[in-house]
């Protein structure tokens, strides 16, 4: 078995909590974060349910100690909060002490500011500091500058698999010895752009989402940021670091089927899960739990379910659940949000439930885990899929 790359820190903010402990408590007490929209100005306010972080941008400015003329988008602010917690939990005070990189996944970056000020840039000078927010890389740089990482900085944008790919890249760079330490994950705030975009595809649910249910109506969008810290074996040994878990397997494949929809045989997902297990040196019997992508769209859950039955056999699919009914689908951040939930699963020996499930899907014999249970967990497989056929799988081990 591949020993994997050490995870030494994590930080998260989502609709179920402002930090790792709050997220864990919400998962353990089975209290979800799905509600009506309170802060974002949109016509769709009463049409959909979302996973909104119940804090205003002003709250974040204060919390981060930003100047009043800062150019942070909401996406950048929640990113900075999560990245800061990740560094703190890894006991990192000086990011420059080792060769440290930062890779953040985002789908629309600072779109929350762009859509707010786009029509006002010509008239109002004060808004113009947000013009650059239209570049996704600018969001990443706002965060990297805030946490003091100036070397290797990059942004991955592969829609809803972005953060998973960021974690994969971090693990590969460390394994190859190219860098000593990586802060990796993703961030996405709610925006009118994504709400209306997914709306045009008619895949937003007007009620709480129901992953893997036969009567599922679509997804709930959410907002979140989550980062994990990966460190080389040398640092772990030298600084006697506490290892929270390991990233042991990773793979990225493409469905090459349709610009947005997943194929009916789940080819991309199948290839990603298969290769990730090969890289981890694990067989199907070693997987204790699957944190599924499970967005609750008719298309995703069918495609992902088929891929799981192809890999494991319909009667041998491990215990699985989608945690999207807690947080909503946090787009580019989903991969790192669920990476942290996977690490918590391993640490706490708990399986977090797939909420709102009632009726088994007619296409196959798969029932997600619907109650919080204790189970000895050594290995978690986590899926993240996105537009453009992007399918990524990560495997976390004890």
């Amino acid at each position: 078995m591949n020993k994997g790359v050490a995870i030494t820190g994590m930080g998260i903010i989502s609709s179920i909590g402002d930090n790792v402990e709050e997220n864990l408590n919400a998962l353990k007490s089975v209290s979800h974060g799905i509600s009506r929209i309170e802060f974002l100005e949109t016509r769709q306010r009463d049409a959909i349910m979302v996973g909104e972080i119940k804090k205003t941008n002003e709250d974040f400015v204060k919390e981060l100690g930003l100047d009043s003329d800062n150019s942070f988008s909401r996406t950048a602010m929640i990113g900075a909060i999560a990245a800061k917690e990740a560094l703190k939990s890894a006991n990192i005070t000086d990011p420059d002490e080792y060769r440290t990189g930062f890779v953040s996944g985002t789908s629309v970056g600072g779109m929350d500011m762009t859509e707010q000020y786009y029509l006002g840039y010509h008239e109002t000078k004060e808004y113009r500091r947000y013009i650059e927010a239209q570049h996704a890389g600018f969001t990443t740089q706002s965060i990297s500058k805030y946490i003091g990482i100036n070397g290797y900085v990059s942004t991955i944008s592969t829609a809803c698999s972005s953060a998973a790919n960021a974690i994969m890249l971090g693990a590969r760079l460390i394994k190859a010895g190219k860098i000593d330490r990586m802060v990796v994950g993703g961030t996405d705030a709610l925006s009118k752009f994504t709400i209306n975009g997914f709306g045009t595809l008619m895949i937003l649910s007007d009620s709480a989402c129901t992953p893997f249910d036969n009567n599922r109506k679509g997804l709930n969008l959410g907002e979140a940021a989550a980062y994990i810290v990966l460190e080389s074996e040398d640092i772990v040994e030298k600084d006697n670091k506490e290892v929270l878990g390991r990233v042991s397997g990773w793979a990225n494949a493409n469905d090459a089927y349709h610009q947005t929809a997943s194929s009916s045989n789940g080819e991309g997902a199948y290839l990603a899960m298969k290769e990730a297990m090969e890289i981890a040196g694990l067989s199907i019997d070693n997987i204790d739990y699957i944190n599924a992508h499970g967005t609750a769209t008719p298309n995703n859950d069918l495609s992902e379910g088929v891929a799981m039955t192809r890999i494991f056999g319909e009667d041998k699919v491990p215990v699985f659940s989608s945690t999207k009914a807690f947080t909503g689908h946090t787009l580019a951040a989903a991969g790192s949000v669920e990476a942290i939930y996977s690490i918590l699963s391993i640490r706490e020996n708990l399986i977090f439930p797939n909420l709102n499930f009632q009726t088994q899907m007619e296409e196959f014999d798969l029932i997600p885990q619907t109650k919080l249970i204790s189970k000895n967990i050594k290995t978690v497989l986590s899926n993240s899929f996105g537009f453009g056929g992007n399918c990524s799988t990560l495997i976390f081990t004890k």
Partner: protein
Amino acid sequence: MAELREELKEKIIEQLSLEDVEVSEIGDDDSLFGDGLGLDSIDALELIVLLEKDYGIKLKDPKEGKAIFESIGVMADYIAKNRTK
């Protein structure tokens, strides 16, 4: 009705950017999806918005579109019966 059919053909060509297709090439009974005009699921969603925007017909479930968008003829009949503008 013939007028509505022609209007639909023009709108479909424009809305779906079918640059190489002429109105005269689309038969009233040709299937729009699959072997006919070759439209796909994204085009179906575009047509749902076209129904709402231009004819005041709102479909709740994208699955309803499948039968309505079978051909120009079927689509025109449906619009004539259900239009609110």
